[in-house]
Structure formats: structure tokens, C-alpha cells
């Protein structure tokens, strides 16, 4: 729809160079004026005041021990360095006289600013336009914990954290070949956030890689603070509530996606990874599927699909049956519903909408409150409000049961994003069912199928593998020795994955 087309907008050129200050200690200090964490100090090489260098860094971004041990100690104690001429001293420091692992020669203020932002310190040499930057960043970060949103019963229990390099290391530990490519892009004018694109060379589709990188490069925003800051800029369409990229907290699931030919994206500050392109079958699979028996995994997948239909259609079916097609309800159930509804003053649609909205309110309240209180509110709210509404004859018990079943069925979705999309469509389908009964419901479902069929993620139909001739593979988890082909991401290369 036109209102969701990406606005080409007004020119918003990136200023080049970003910082106009000269590459000098004073220039940096000017750029960082009123920044209490910017530090500058003079250092005498070998204790000689004639050989004074200037060290600059951002406090908190660097690890103090590294600066002291790897930078300051050799500067103060290395006699060879102290005796060298300035030109020689620069070359020695760049090539190993300082013990730091990383040493970069920089010539522009923009480069130095980027290095400072990631935790480097800068050494200025009197009379030279070049400077040296040394990465001495702190590694203070949240320790690797369990994936709370994707719990594991059997299998790996590590989860992505907010540190990009830690995340890439977790991936690299699982996929150790150099064909695992990791390319970095800096996104955000104000945040300079590194975003890494990962793929398996020879397996992933190069066009997809290119598209992903092009979209990330095209992002000209202030910064990335939330997952949406990245997702909404790289997906194909904004006029859908359905997730077009799959996200995961689990490195093992992420690596599985890479091996299947998908392209991964990791972002500094985000404890999750994205797998592209996103197809509908991904949102019904979990990492647990491959840890258990294939029959059980298939049964659970079928159950998830069934629950998807239940959560989407049950309230609408109830409204349609009670309002338009009572003959389709079994006799004794119809009599029970009829008896209960005789005391309820509201139409079935109103009852269902009341309960659906109450369900959403309780869920939202539970999420916003601290854990234990949130759970209490959810449980008490559900029990008290539900039973009180039935007692007060505001809703009939059947509505309460239908809405509760629909809500609980939605929680079986492995992807919360997908479940949210279903919640949204559920309201629409319920309203349509109240207008036209089963006819309205069927029309709504047809509209949903049409909508899904029109979606693409990086050139791949969203309804893959059901529209690419691999219907069975989308639902059934075959025994792993029989899964000899990488599924679901056409057109991937090197399709065979085992003997």
C-alpha cells in the first residue's frame, strides 16, 4: 500500500568529513568538549621530556590495565624506543614496540573518532599528521547466559549477548572453516554501531548476501538502539505484521541457519541474530526439533500448525457458529451455549471482543510489571476477571473458554513476532465472522492467504517451502540421515549437505 512505501524523502546527505577539527590533541579535545570521560595526558618516552607524546582515550571504553601494561609501560621503560629518532620511533611503535595486539595508523579525524568509540587509545606525535591508535577496549559485558526466550531442554544453553565480537566468536566456535564470512558495516550517524553480515561462502546465495549488505549500507539513521531499528530497515515490506526475518537468541540455531544457506546478521548491542531470508516454516521450527526423536518432532510441529489455526480462527468460528450457524454446533453443546447466553445481554461479537481485549490487557500488564508481580497480575486477573465476568453474566462461559484456548494456543508459536501477527489478524477475522458468518471468515482467511502469498523476503516467497514443491519438508521433520538436501532457501548453492 502506498502509505507503507518507503519514502524516498528529502536529501539528507552525510557530511564528509564528519568532523572538521584538525587531527591534533587540541582538535580532539575540541570535538569532545564538555565530555568528562574524554581523557588526555602527556607521556615522556623513556622519561625524556624532549620526547613527549600525547595519549587520548575515552574513559570507560578502554580497559585501564591494557593501556598501562601494553602502552604506557613500554613507553616509559623501553630504552631502544627512547633512543630512537621520531621517525624511527613511530615505525617501531606501529610495528610492535608496544605490546598491544592492534595498532593502526590513522590520518583523519573521522578514523580516529571511530577508533575512540570502540575503545582504542590514540597516540599523537609532535609535528606528525599521522597518529597511531591501539585497541584497548574493555570487555565488560554481560556474561553468556541461557536463551530465556528459547529455552533448551536438551542441547546447547548459550545465548547471544550484547557484545558483537563475543557473538561472532560463538558462531566461529561452531563453524570453524574460513568459508564462514563475516563482513562488518557501520550503521548510525550518531552511534556508529557495527553490524556484521555472516554467510557460508559456497552455500549461501551471493545475491542475497549482496542485497543484505546493500540494505544495511543504505541505512542512514541516527543509530541502532532496538531490534526494530535494524529489522524495519532491511525487510522488503512494512505493510505486514508478519516477521520477514527470523531472529534467534541461540547461536546453535543461528549456525544451523547459516549452514542451510541463509544469511546471518549480528549487531553490536543486540543479544540476538537475524537469519535471512525469512520464510513461514522457520517460525514453526525450534532447535528442539533436532534434538529429539523425529516422530515426536514431527508431531510437535503438526501441533504447532494446529495451534496456529486454533489461535487464529477459534474466536471467529465461535462467533460465526453462535450468530449465524447454530446448526453446526452439536446438539448438547448448543443447548448449553443457548442456556448460558440467555442471561447475557451482549451479542456474541461483543462478548468475544471484550474477552480478547481483556486478554491482551492482562498480557500487556503482566509484561510491564516486574516478574513476580506480573505473574500475579496475569494469574489473578485471568481468574478473577474471567470468573467475575461469567458470574456477572457479561460473558458466557463458552466465550471464556474459546478465548482462553485461542490465547494459550498462540503461546505455542516458537516466534513471538509471528504469534503477535496472528493476534492482530485474529481480531480482524473475528469481526469478519460477525459480519458474514463462515462466509466472512472464509473471505478473511482468503485475504490472509493472499497477503502471505504476496510477501517476499529477499526474493524468496514467504510461503516457502509450500510454494516451492517441498510441502512435506515444511511440516515433517524427517530422520536427519534422510535430510540430504538443504531445504527452504532457494536458490541456494551446494544443496547436498551429507553423504
Amino acid at each position, binding site marked *: 500500500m502506498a502509505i507503507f512505501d518507503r519514502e524516498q524523502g528529502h536529501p539528507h546527505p552525510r557530511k564528509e568529513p564528519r568532523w572538521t577539527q584538525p587531527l591534533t590533541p587540541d582538535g580532539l579535545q575540541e570535538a569532545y568538549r564538555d565530555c568528562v570521560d574524554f581523557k588526555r595526558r602527556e607521556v615522556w618516552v623513556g622519561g625524556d621530556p624532549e620526547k613527549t607524546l600525547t595519549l587520548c582515550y575515552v574513559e570507560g571504553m578502554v580497559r585501564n590495565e591494557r593501556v598501562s601494561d601494553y602502552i604506557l609501560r613500554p613507553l616509559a621503560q623501553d630504552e631502544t624506543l627512547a633512543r630512537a629518532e621520531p621517525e624511527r620511533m613511530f615505525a617501531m611503535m606501529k610495528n610492535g614496540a608496544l605490546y598491544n595486539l592492534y595498532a593502526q595508523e590513522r590520518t583523519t579525524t573521522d578514523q580516529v573518532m571511530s577508533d575512540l568509540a570502540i575503545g582504542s587509545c590514540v597516540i599523537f606525535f609532535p609535528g606528525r599528521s599521522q597518529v597511531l591508535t591501539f585497541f584497548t577496549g574493555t570487555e565488560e559485558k554481560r556474561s553468556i547466559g541461557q536463551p530465556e526466550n528459547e529455552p533448551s531442554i536438551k542441547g546447547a544453553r548459550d545465548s547471544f549477548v550484547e557484545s558483537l565480537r563475543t557473538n561472532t566468536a560463538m558462531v566461529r566456535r561452531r563453524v570453524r572453516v574460513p568459508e564462514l564470512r563475516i563482513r562488518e558495516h557501520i550503521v548510525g550517524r550518531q552511534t556508529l554501531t557495527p553490524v556484521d553480515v555472516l554467510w557460508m561462502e559456497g552455500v549461501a546465495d551471493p545475491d542475497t548476501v549482496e542485497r543484505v549488505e546493500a540494505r544495511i549500507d543504505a541505512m542512514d539513521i541516527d543509530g541502532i538502539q532496538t531490534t526494530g531499528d535494524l529489522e524495519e530497515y532491511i525487510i522488503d515490506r512494512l505493510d505486514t505484521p508478519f516477521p520477514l526475518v527470523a531472529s534467534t537468541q541461540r547461536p546453535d540455531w543461528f549456525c544451523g541457519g547459516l549452514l542451510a544457506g541463509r544469511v546471518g546478521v549480528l549487531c553490536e548491542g543486540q543479544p540476538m541474530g537475524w537469519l535471512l531470508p525469512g520464510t513461514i516454516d522457520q517460525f514453526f521450527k525450534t532447535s528442539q526439533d533436532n534434538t529429539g526423536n523425529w516422530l515426536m518432532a514431527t508431531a510437535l510441529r503438526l501441533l504447532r500448525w494446529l495451534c496456529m489455526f486454533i489461535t487464529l480462527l477459534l474466536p471467529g468460528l465461535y462467533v460465526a457458529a*453462535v*450468530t*449465524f*450457524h*447454530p*446448526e453446526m454446533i452439536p*446438539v448438547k453443546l*448448543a*443447548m*448449553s*451455549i*443457548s*442456556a*448460558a*447466553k*440467555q*442471561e*447475557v445481554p451482549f*451479542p*456474541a461479537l461483543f462478548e468475544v471482543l471484550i474477552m480478547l481485549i481483556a486478554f491482551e490487557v492482562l498480557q500487556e500488564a503482566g509484561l510491564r510489571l516486574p516478574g513476580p508481580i506480573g505473574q500475579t497480575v496475569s494469574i489473578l486477573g485471568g481468574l478473577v476477571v474471567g470468573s467475575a465476568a461469567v458470574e456477572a453474566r457479561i460473558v458466557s462461559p463458552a466465550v471464556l473458554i474459546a478465548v482462553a484456548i485461542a490465547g494459550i494456543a498462540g503461546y505455542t508459536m516458537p516466534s513471538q513476532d509471528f504469534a503477535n501477527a496472528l493476534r492482530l489478524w485474529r481480531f480482524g477475522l473475528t469481526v469478519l465472522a*460477525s*459480519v*458474514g*458468518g*463462515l*462466509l*466472512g471468515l472464509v473471505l478473511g482467511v482468503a485475504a490472509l492467504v493472499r497477503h502471505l502469498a504476496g510477501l517476499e523476503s529477499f526474493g524468496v516467497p514467504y510461503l516457502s517451502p509450500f510454494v516451492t514443491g517441498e510441502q512435506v519438508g515444511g511440516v515433517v521433520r524427517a530422520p536427519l540421515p534422510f535430510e540430504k538436501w538443504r531445504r527452504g532457501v532457494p536458490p541456494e548453492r551446494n544443496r547436498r549437505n551429507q553423504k
Partner: protein
Amino acid sequence: MKRLAAWTLLLSLLSGCGRAALPYAREMGDMALLRTMGLDVAQNGVELTVSTAKQSGRPALALSATGPSVAYAAQAVQSLGDSYVFYGHVDQMLLGEELAARGVGPALDHLAREPQLGLGVDLWVVQGGRASDAVFAGGDEGVPARLDQLEVDAGLGAANIGCTALRLMSVLARGASTCIPALILAPAREGDGGQGGEQTLLPGGYAVIREGKLVCFLQGDEALGVELLQEQVGGHIVDIDLSGGPRVSLRVEKSDVSCEPVFQDGELTGLNITCALSARVAQTERTLSPGQLQEVTRAFELLEGERMVAALERSQYWDADFLGLEYWAQQSSPSRKVDIERVWRESFRGLTIQVEVRGYVERSAGMMDEGVEHGKTPG
């Protein structure tokens, strides 16, 4: 353009302009969900009596109206009471004897044409009474509960074989005959399982429908003979008094019937019906000796054979093949199917029907005593 058309369609539907294209909404709380319909002959045509079931402490609602046609009476019922009368859950229909004798066609036609109704409705004929009396006999409990129980009993063999409107209609469409269960309206008494009214409904055998009209009722042994020949036995009890010995009760468990047409000079002259019956000793005063078991088996075969013969005689007397013998004969001699079909109507009454019964009585688990064949029972 497509989008404009879609929006226009949606808005027209939502605004009510497209109401004709949408189903009509009605809240279930405002409905009286009918379960039972009764049809009788009335002075001006038809009397329709309907009833809901008792639900959640609310007494059953029974309404009655008359009209020149069933559809008219149904419309008249709609104006009664304080709820919308919904026919979508009607699954029981009672036919008064007089109406059945005049013809069940109008009732079936209404069931077939009325969108809320269907042909899955179970049928009963009220023997010697009116359907309206039977419906009102349900009292506050409502007659549907009693009829539900009769359906369950039929499945258990404790009541007559059921018949749906669809089955009756398909039989009548072939010009054949059939029998549908009959009910008797009897005064209620303690212990009869009635619903608290002054009268109660009891199984009353079968009503034979030929060419769409009631011709006779089958009761007692004739009704049991029908069930045996239809292979629909459900455990009826046969009491046998041994000569100078104990009384033995048998539970009949299975009936397996085969029917062979007999041709002489190319003409159909008779039928040989063989019926293998299985029964189990349900009660006896002492353990039966092998000789006594043989005697029991002989008596069992004789008794059940007489029942089948009684049913067959009635069938031939009324020239109503409600047992489906033509179909059985055709199935056993497919090559003579056309010949049988050609002469059946003219020759059915004059056919010589021989019945052979083979009884198998099981006196205890795992010990089957095969009965002795005693030749053919009187045919």
C-alpha cells in the same frame, strides 16, 4: 481498480447494503432449540407439535399449531412463544398413526426442502395415537430425552432398529417398502422410567410403510423376526424350558443371514433363507449337560425360526418387502439380478420361502457347543 472494488464491496457489506448476500444473524440466547417434531392429521390439514429439551433447569417448551401444510404450520409455530424457534437441531420426528396411514410424503418433503432441517432425522410412528399427545407426554422433562434414550437402546438392542428420513426416502424412491420403529403411548407407572408425565412412550415394534403409507404394525415375535432377518439383533433374551429340567435363558448375540433364490424352469419360485444364530447362556439353574445343551439349541432354533417365519408371512401377506429380500436375492445371484427384478413385484406374494436356522449356543467363555442341525423349520 481492484483495490477500489474490494473496498467498495467491504463497505457495502458493512453498511448493510449487501445484507442479502450475507447470512442472517441471530443470537442463540434468543432461540428455542427444537429437538422433536410431531405431525398429525388435523381438521384443516396438519397439526405440527414441536418440543425443546429441558436445559439447565428450564422446563421443556412444547408448541403446537395447525395449517393446511407442514410448512404453514411450521410458520405458525414461529409466532408462538417468546423465542425464535430454531429447527436446525431437530433430529426426532413422530408421526401420528392416522397421518402415517395417509402418507409420509408431505413430512419427508418438508424435511428435504426446509433449509434448517435435514434428512438425518430419526422417525417413529405413534401406534394408536397422535404425535402431539406423545410430544406433550414429555411434560417438563420434554420428550426428546425419552427419544434419545430409545435411540441409545436401539443401539444396544434393547429397542427397535432406528430409521432416518433419508433411509425412508431412499426406500420409497425405489418403490420398495420398509419398516420404521413404532411407539406406544402408555399410562405412566412407577418404575417405567418415564419422564414424570401422565403418560410415557414405550417401544411398540415396527410400522410397515409401503408406497409411502402405513399398512400394518409388527409386534412381539414378528418384530423380533424382523430384527433377526435384518441381522440387527442386540441381545434379546430367549427363555427355554427344558423337558423336566431347568429353565435356561439365552442372550441372542449374532445373526448371519443368507438368501438364495430358487428358480424352476427359469422362473423364480422361491427363496431359501439360511440364518446362523449365535447365543450365549445368560442364566440357568445348573450346569447344562451336553445333551441338555443340544436340547436347548434345538428349542432355540425352533423358536427363532418361528419368529422369522412370522415376519416373512406378514411381509408376503401385505405384499411389502420391508425385509429387503429382493436385494438379498440379487446379491446372492448377481447373474439373475435382472430376472429377479423383473418378476419380483408380481411373484413375491407367491414365493415359497424356506427358512433354515443353525443355532450356536455358547455356555461359557471358550467353550462353544455347536448345535445340531435339525433341518428346516416350517416355512
